[in-house]
């Protein structure tokens, strides 16, 4: 989701020690409010369309925010940002706490699977490269 990249970009330019030091009208807060509004709109649209899982897109976004959390432990501001985003998503998605609990406990599996995927991608790129050069 492009807006997540925008949020990351804005956050990377911040020179404050904590998000609490930012004014309510800061660009970052505006992006976060925009993200939450988009998620709510998507959920409403899904509900109107009779979807059995209107929160699925919201949960996908939440997972994208959650997975880098582990890597952000050494970066306090980034870690705070991701927690803050998840807190925001929680206000529009009641299922999030249950999902987060499950994601946390299966995080190792998820990380391993991602590593395997990256390895497969690397292998396949390498294989393609080798074939092209034979």
């Amino acid at each position, binding site marked *: 989701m492009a807006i997540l990249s925008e949020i990351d970009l804005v956050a990377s330019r911040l020179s404050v020690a904590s998000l609490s030091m930012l004014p309510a009208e800061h660009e970052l807060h505006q992006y976060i409010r925009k993200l939450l509004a988009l998620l709510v709109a998507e959920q409403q649209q899904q509900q109107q369309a009779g979807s059995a899982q209107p929160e699925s897109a919201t949960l996908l976004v939440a997972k994208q925010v959650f997975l880098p959390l582990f890597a952000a432990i050494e970066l306090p501001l980034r870690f705070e940002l991701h927690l803050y985003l998840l807190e925001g998503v929680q206000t529009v998605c009641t299922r*999030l*706490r249950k999902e*987060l609990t499950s994601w*946390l406990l299966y995080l190792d599996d998820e990380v391993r699977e991602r590593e395997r995927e990256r390895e497969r991608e690397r292998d396949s790129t390498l294989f393609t490269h080798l074939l092209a050069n034979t």
Partner: protein
Amino acid sequence: MVEGLIRSRLLDLSDFDLYLANWMENGRNEIVVEFVLWIIQRFVLELKIVEASELPNSLDLLYRLVSQYQRSGLKPNNRYARAPACCVLCAVRAGCIELTQECRIS
């Protein structure tokens, strides 16, 4: 990471408790037993941001394990499940929040 999620109330503690209690596999999974003891030590006793009553299944199982170890006279292998663990559990059970120096898990 766990601390951040718990502090932000982003975890469903009743689910968390159930998962952990199952994963302890009646004490066979010592890594999880140690993890649960750390959770209790850190969040219930030190930071006081989780109530002992929010982890009933994990605490029940740990209490049973400790009682079992004490009755059998066997020493479990993991460092958290030795004497300090008993102290932690007893402190939680008794609603005693303050740990004495000798009970503190090192």
